[in-house]
């Protein structure tokens, strides 16, 4: 509300408010927007807490700049979802050297223990869970097409890696096609159309996110081949859940966006108050299929 | 024998797609002479010169310069060999200073670091030698056209070349500068420099050239001595037929007032301009450079609005805020700089012609292309525009033919009041006569015409009445009968003399 904004102009916690800087990688990302919802819900339930949200637009350099801005504003704690996990340690060092607690959310990496705390799950795991379910549905054999998100982005790298790890373990499974549709439904549709024209036999299209998976489903439906192909996504967005419900999307992976947002902010506030926090706060992935989809549909309502 | 010649070009042929610009022509220039190159628009003069300076490569031909055969890879090559050129189209770098423009490409420098002071000093020295008074530090864009031309001239001279090509150097400068240029040419000649001189002005031939060569339609016609030259013979060589009297003025019936301009003023550019033009009348506006003639026409035409004053057309006051308003009230303006404000270079001749008049070709939602084609064809024939067809890009036409196409634009529109600002700039004799006849024809049809021209014979030959301007003011009016070159000059410079 208004009061909070006024406080932000003071820019510090001198008036007793706790200021948390939230460095998010991409406001355009739908899943992250649910995460932000979780944070906002939680923030509004807290008194004397103000959260400054910034958007790095998937630019690690910009994120570093924003954290620097937080530091110069002297926020009480930083909550960050790294744009990428390679440059993250460096940013964490910055915060540490200024003694500002920093909580990393959602994207895990090796040196994450340098941060005050980690809240989230292991991205690789999403890819593994997704492909394991696909493998199960295919009976451990078949031709798989992998649809990548925007190349070089954390989710793309790890989810695809997870996919590939599973395929490697299944001797009768093969990745026959692999291309990027940049997390975009229209591009997913186009890519799937082109794949279908290639004449290659495809038993499953495994996508880095739900949007592209929906695009693929639409292309398959159009070509009358949806029956023959298992489509899998990640995120369990409301749209995607509808597709799971109707049996078109066989697999998706629920990552508790709101839970991570709330958990991350909660931890950051605790750290800002100087309270002790757990180093690792796991929020597990959950597999969504036709069987349990109603549960998740309820979550969005 | 060949030592006498600084330049021998033989059998030079150059074809552009669709146009044989040069067909096995020759040009022999003796050492230390001024050699004129004459010919109608599009005869191929500039093309041959561009070959000589290394801009184009000939399809065929032998060029011997200073005793050795010449093969040029680029302009720098030619400059290094001792050939420099004043180009027909002025090409300054407007944002750079005079000094930078003159020494562009050969700045005094150490390891790439330009010695700014030296640059200015060198320019000053050059200007001293040439007796010119231009600030080397001025930006090119601040110079008048005449001074821009003078800078280009001094630039060409500054290379200390053996041969200097001058492609219509006097088309944009005034009496004073012309004299100055001729003085320079004479002194260059004394130093043994040879000059190729291109012009459409006959009188210049006799004044400074030793010999001249004539081209016609890309072919060599002949070379003669300039002494004892008869104008008729020259014209015969150039156009291949005899031209009748240049000004064939048929008196038109002069009736009601078509346009009256009342107390037009704009900043300090034009002051209290009032005049009238009647139907059938040709009014000339004369004046020294910068006297504001163009500004007057452009203000009337709504190109830039005047600060005060108003305009009446057929006795009715009209508000003109843009050229659109002007056209709607029955006016037309042929601008003085066709490249800048006339031509649509990438478009076809036809598209260039119909712009003003386009509303008349609208049939339903579309344009009536047949009617467009027939109307344009008529103009094409009437003005004898030299182009293979009307779909040709206008950029491929020679300057004179481009000018004719622009005149066609206004003829198609057929305005009641027509402003012609330097209508024959850069146009050859043949075409000039045609344009003059056209102007008379228009007047005879009852059009009111205002002509600006810097060539006094032209203005005297065309006008029923001449308005003389100076520093944005009208200094006086002369009727056709009383007007003479001397009287115009007197009015144009009166106050300056008084001062």
């Amino acid at each position, binding site marked *: 509300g208004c009061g909070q904004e006024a406080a932000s102009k003071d820019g510090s916690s001198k008036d007793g408010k706790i200021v948390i800087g939230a460095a998010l990688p991409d406001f*355009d990302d739908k899943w992250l927007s649910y995460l932000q919802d979780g944070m906002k819900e939680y923030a509004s339930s807290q008194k004397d807490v103000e959260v400054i949200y910034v958007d790095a637009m998937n630019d690690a350099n910009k994120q570093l700049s924003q954290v620097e801005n937080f530091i110069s504003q002297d926020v009480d704690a930083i909550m960050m979802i790294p744009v990428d996990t390679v440059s993250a340690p460096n940013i964490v060092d910055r915060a540490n050297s200024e003694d500002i607690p920093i909580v990393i959310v959602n994207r895990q990496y090796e040196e994450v223990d340098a941060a005050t705390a980690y809240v989230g799950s292991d991205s690789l795991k999403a890819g593994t869970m997704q492909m394991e379910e696909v493998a199960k549905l295919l009976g451990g054999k078949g031709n798989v097409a992998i649809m990548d998100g925007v190349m070089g982005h954390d989710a793309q790298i790890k989810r695809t890696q997870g996919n590939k790890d599973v395929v490697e373990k299944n001797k009768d499974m093969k990745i026959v096609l692999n291309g*990027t549709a940049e*997390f975009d439904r*229209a591009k997913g549709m186009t890519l799937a159309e082109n794949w279908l024209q290639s004449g290659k036999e495809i038993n499953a299209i495994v996508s880095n996110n739900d949007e592209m998976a929906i695009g693929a489903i639409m292309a398959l439906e159009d070509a009358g081949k949806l029956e023959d192909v298992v489509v899998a996504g990640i995120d369990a967005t409301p749209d995607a859940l509808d597709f799971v419900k109707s049996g078109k999307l066989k697999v998706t992976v629920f990552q508790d966006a709101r839970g991570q947002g709330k958990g991350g902010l909660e931890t950051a506030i605790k750290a800002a108050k100087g309270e002790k926090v757990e180093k690792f706060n796991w929020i597990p992935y959950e597999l969504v299929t036709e069987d349990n989809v109603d549960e998740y549909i309820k979550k969005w309502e | 024998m060949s030592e006498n010649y600084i330049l021998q070009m033989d059998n030079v042929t150059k074809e552009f797609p669709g146009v044989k610009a040069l067909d096995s022509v020759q040009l022999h220039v003796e050492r230390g002479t001024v050699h004129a190159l004459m010919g109608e628009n599009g005869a191929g003069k500039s093309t041959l010169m561009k070959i000589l300076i290394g801009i184009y490569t000939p399809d065929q031909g032998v060029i011997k310069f200073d005793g050795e055969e010449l093969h040029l890879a680029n302009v720098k090559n030619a400059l290094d060999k001792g050939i420099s050129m004043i180009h027909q189209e002025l090409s300054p770098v407007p944002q750079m200073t005079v000094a930078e423009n003159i020494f562009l490409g050969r700045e005094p420098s150490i390891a790439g670091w330009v010695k700014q002071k030296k640059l200015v000093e060198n320019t000053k020295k050059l200007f001293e030698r040439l007796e010119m008074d231009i600030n080397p530090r001025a930006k090119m864009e601040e110079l008048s056209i005449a001074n821009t031309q003078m800078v280009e001239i001094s630039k060409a001279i500054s290379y200390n070349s053996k041969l200097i090509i001058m492609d219509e150097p006097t088309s944009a400068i005034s009496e004073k500068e012309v004299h100055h240029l001729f003085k320079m040419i004479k002194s260059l000649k004394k130093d043994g420099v040879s000059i190729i001189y291109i012009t459409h002005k006959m009188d210049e031939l006799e004044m400074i050239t030793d010999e001249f060569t004539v081209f016609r339609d890309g072919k060599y016609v002949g070379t003669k001595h300039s002494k004892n030259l008869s104008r008729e013979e020259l014209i015969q060589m150039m156009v291949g037929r005899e031209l009748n009297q240049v000004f064939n003025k048929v008196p038109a019936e002069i009736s009601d007032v078509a346009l009256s301009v009342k107390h037009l003023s704009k900043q300090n550019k034009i002051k209290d301009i009032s005049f009238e033009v009647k139907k059938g009348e040709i009014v000339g506006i004369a004046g020294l450079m910068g006297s504001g003639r163009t500004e007057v026409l452009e203000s009337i035409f709504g190109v830039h609005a005047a600060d005060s004053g108003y305009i009446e057309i057929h006795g009715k006051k009209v508000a003109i805020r843009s050229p659109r308003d002007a*056209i709607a009230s029955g006016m037309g303006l042929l601008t003085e700089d066709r490249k*800048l404000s006339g031509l*649509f270079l990438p478009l076809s001749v036809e598209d260039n012609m119909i712009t003003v008049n386009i509303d008349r070709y609208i049939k339903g939602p579309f344009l009536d292309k047949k009617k467009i084609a027939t109307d344009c064809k008529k103009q094409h024939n009437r003005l004898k525009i030299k182009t293979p067809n009307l779909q040709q890009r206008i950029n491929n036409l020679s300057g004179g033919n481009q000018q004719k196409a622009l005149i066609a634009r206004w003829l198609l529109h057929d305005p009641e009041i027509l402003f012609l600002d330097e209508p024959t700039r850069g146009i050859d004799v043949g075409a000039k006569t045609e344009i003059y006849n056209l102007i008379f024809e228009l007047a005879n049809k009852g059009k009111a015409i205002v002509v600006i021209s810097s060539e006094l014979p032209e203005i005297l030959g065309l006008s029923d009445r001449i308005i003389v301007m100076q520093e944005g003011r009208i200094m006086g009016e002369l009727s056709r009968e009383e007007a003479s070159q001397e009287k115009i000059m007197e009015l144009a410079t009166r106050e300056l003399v008084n001062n």
Partner: protein
Amino acid sequence: MQRDIKITEQIDTHTHYRKLQKEKASHFLGKYGMLLILIALVVLMSILSPTFFTSGNLLNIVRQMSIIGIVAIGVTMVIITTGIDLSSGSVIALVSVMVATFAQPNSYPLVVAIFIGLGIGLLAGVINGTIIAKGKIAPFIVTLGMMTAARGAALLFSDGRPIGNLSPTFTFIGQGTLLGIPVPIFIFAFVGIFSYMLLNHTKFGKYVYAIGGNEQAAIIAGVNVVKYKILIYGYAGLLSSVAGIVLTSRIASGQPTAGTMYELDAIAAAVIGGTSLTGGIGTIGGTIIGALIIGVMNNGLDLLNVSSYWQQILKGAIIVIAVLIDSRKNKKA
């Protein structure tokens, strides 16, 4: 003589383009040069991939390209006037979320959604045109601003989330077929023909070329340059709307991130198709060929399962090489 021509070209900025239509022969090549490159590309792809040259796949390509193609047609007109439009992709996104909001089943009649969609793009285009024409600001900057702002507005309006659940009548636009041919292809064809007529057979079209050929001369010739520029950018915006509506209908959801970088594909299509960035030159037919070249390239590389990294490298190279070959060929002629 090779060298000579090179120098000629340097001397005259327009020579490059002039060459395109200098003579009947080179005129032919200039006009059909890119068509030949398109055909060469099609032949190459057909050899490399047996499934490429099937009617199904060819329809596929045209349908996929129809969205970029529609945008590119508007962009072509803008470029002919020496302008540029960087905002197309973002306008598509804004239109997408707005249309999706009004195209929910049982809410508004279909026409309302469509009119709102068309209106948004038209408005964005008119704003572009007005600032460019009245403010005399470089189109690059104005449309860059619009690109940023419209994307922000799309995100703001949709709260960064896709809007799904669209009515089936609406989704017919992008997904349906008529006589076995996808509806987007009909829309593309209609836009193409309409724009062709507009550009070649109307006063509007002549003015587009005139403004691009010499704006100052157009003013003197009485053309209301401000008005026509606003109309031209408005038309480009309108076509972005059409593209946005087709896209939204095709993917059955309004996407605030839709259309990212489409402006670059559209500009590339126009330029590959012979539109000159220095103004005055360009055709609808050329642009459609340009769009198809991009479409064939995208489709072919996917069919061949070229890795996405290599796809980008190849696409970059092909765009440049196509334009390069085209300009070379014209020189030879």
